[in-house]
């Protein structure tokens, strides 16, 4: 990294050696602002490329200051990009054309599906979406045209995109949703709105409806998946052991003390056994909760349901043999415990234990 001749060659362009000599400087400027090594390297490259491109316009002695400013600009534009990416993560249906030449048919189908999906939107939804996505009109000017606010337009666009995704998938699969509940569930999944998903009991619907279970996969694959969730499908005895081990592991990650780990694993064992005993199939979803710290376990099944939930929960304190559902015991081991059951459809048990309580 010897100092390159500052005077530069007689010509108007700096020599490659001079550019090379900038590397440590640029690297330091970038590294001070971008912690990730790989990204930093990319930015250093980009800076050097820009400096090189502009070098003819840069006065001989000004190469370094120019490189510093360029590096800062490159970093700043990375932040802007990241921000934009975050704001645009919700854009769906990848509108870029697929590349593989042998996928012509697929492309054709895809286009038809998009067209069909677009046709199912209202005129206004479609106009706004196209103005934004295709013509590149920003939300503020759209808001001005529509007499609304940018935020409201953005929210509306989000909902429209969510619908478009659902309609697109339905058109692509040539499927008509078998029940009234399908569309609301798919929409809730598509928009990533967890509250709405709970309201429409999306998870249960996916257990019951094969069409939605299949369609939901690409919808749920979007955005950030929360890796704190562990899902254990339950059908047989062995799954009970798997579910309680998984719960123990997640709880250990949350930092529960050993006695609590055993309590949580045992509670999971009880509620999971009910799925195996009384229902055809179901699942246990284990989730680490933050603020307050804790663990939440949802066990749901498609099955006969419990006719009298109160009775299932009440077996006195010290005896166990009531209805033998294992529910009262599980409830005593956890801090929060709720059952929703519908005869003929199934049961959902939601239980939570808070870290550091009791």
């Amino acid at each position, binding site marked *: 990294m010897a100092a390159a001749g500052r005077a530069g060659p007689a010509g108007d362009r700096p020599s490659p050696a001079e550019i090379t000599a900038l590397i440590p400087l640029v690297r330091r400027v970038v590294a001070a602002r971008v912690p990730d090594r790989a990204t930093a390297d990319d930015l250093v490259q980009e800076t050097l490329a820009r400096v090189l491109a502009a070098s003819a316009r840069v006065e001989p002695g000004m190469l370094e200051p120019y490189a*510093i400013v360029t590096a800062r600009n490159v970093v700043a534009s990375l932040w802007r990009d990241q921000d934009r990416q975050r704001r645009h993560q919700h854009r769906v249906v990848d509108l870029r054309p697929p590349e593989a030449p042998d996928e012509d048919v697929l492309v054709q189908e895809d286009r038809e599906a998009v067209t069909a999906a677009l046709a199912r939107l209202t005129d206004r939804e479609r106009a706004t979406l196209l103005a934004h996505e295709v013509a590149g009109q920003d939300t503020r000017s759209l808001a001005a045209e529509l007499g609304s606010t940018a935020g409201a337009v953005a929210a509306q666009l989000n909902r429209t995109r969510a619908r478009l995704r659902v309609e697109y998938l339905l058109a692509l699969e040539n499927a008509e949703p078998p029940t009234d509940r399908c569309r609301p569930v798919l929409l809730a999944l598509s928009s990533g709105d967890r509250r709405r998903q709970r309201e429409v009991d999306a998870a249960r619907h996916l257990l019951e409806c094969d069409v939605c279970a299949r369609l939901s996969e690409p919808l749920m694959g979007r955005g950030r998946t929360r890796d704190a969730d562990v899902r254990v499908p339950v059908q047989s005895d062995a799954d009970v052991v798997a579910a309680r081990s998984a719960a123990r592991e997640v709880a250990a990650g949350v930092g529960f003390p050993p006695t609590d780990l055993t309590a949580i694993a045992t509670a999971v064992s009880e509620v999971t056994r009910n799925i195996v005993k009384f229902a055809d199939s179901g699942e246990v979803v284990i989730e680490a909760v933050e603020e307050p710290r804790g663990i939440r376990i949802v066990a749901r099944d498609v099955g006969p349901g419990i006719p009298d939930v109160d009775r299932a929960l009440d077996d006195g304190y010290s005896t166990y043999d009531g209805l033998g559902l294992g529910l009262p015991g599980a409830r005593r081991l956890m801090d929060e415990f709720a059952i929703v059951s519908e005869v003929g459809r199934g049961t959902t048990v939601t239980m939570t234990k808070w870290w550091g309580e009791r």
Partner: protein
Amino acid sequence: MTGTQDDGSRTGARTEEPRTTGSDDEALLPELVAHLREHRTKLRQQWVSRIREENLLQAMTSQEMAAETTSVYDNYVEVLETGSVAALQQYARDLSERIIPRGVETHEVVGIVLLLRDVLARSLFEKYQRDFGMLNRVLDAYEPAANRIANTVAVSFVDERERVIRQQQDSIRELSTPVLPVRERLLILPIIGVLDSERARQLTVQLLGGIRTHRAKVVVIDITGVPGMDETVANHLVQTVDASRLMGASVIITGLSPDIAQTLVTIGVDLSKMATIGDLQGGLEEAERMLGYAPSRPEGAPAP
């Protein structure tokens, strides 16, 4: 929190003198280090007076302050020189260990490091203010390193502080529910003071663990010193007694006050099924009889 040297004067990199200095960038840090070494005394004193102005580290005497600030200063410069924070980390931990018991708070430690960052940045500013390009580069080199140092010290301190607090909590908890192996197979738990949920939980862990460690067959829990307990805790106590039995140990409770006995009855405990004995002495005699040691009373017959 931010250093005050970060004002507008650093923005004009692309303007000013076309004659940026010819020195290689690699030479910047050594130059900086040399500068800080050269002016060590003056800079350190400036730093100390800033610390005093801000009323930080008041727990320290002047001598201590002089000694510690010199060490921190030297460590600081060393990090700039070597780029390795290992030594500083170690020192920060040692320092934390020494000053935490004296009540030094996190903000003070972070504060003094930021002040030092500030003092040094100002001195660099003074030195290079006539050469903008150079100043810019020096600060670019200095700033990230200084931030890293501040971060290292803060993290070390907080870690150490948490460790000390945890240790203290643990030992207090253990002290609050002592498990005493008085003779082979026999444990005593004298509990004094209010049993709240956290202590009750601790008691369970200590007792059940103790049964296994000491291979205890009989446990005497003396609650003479417990003024009262709520139903949750009473219930917890009863559960602990049952759990002890599942581990093969019998529990005798001594010193049960009428109030607590009432609480136990209220939550549905059948007192006739719990081994309760008036005082600790009686409880110990019963325990020894159960263990088959020489009966101290004539009527101590072995179980049928």
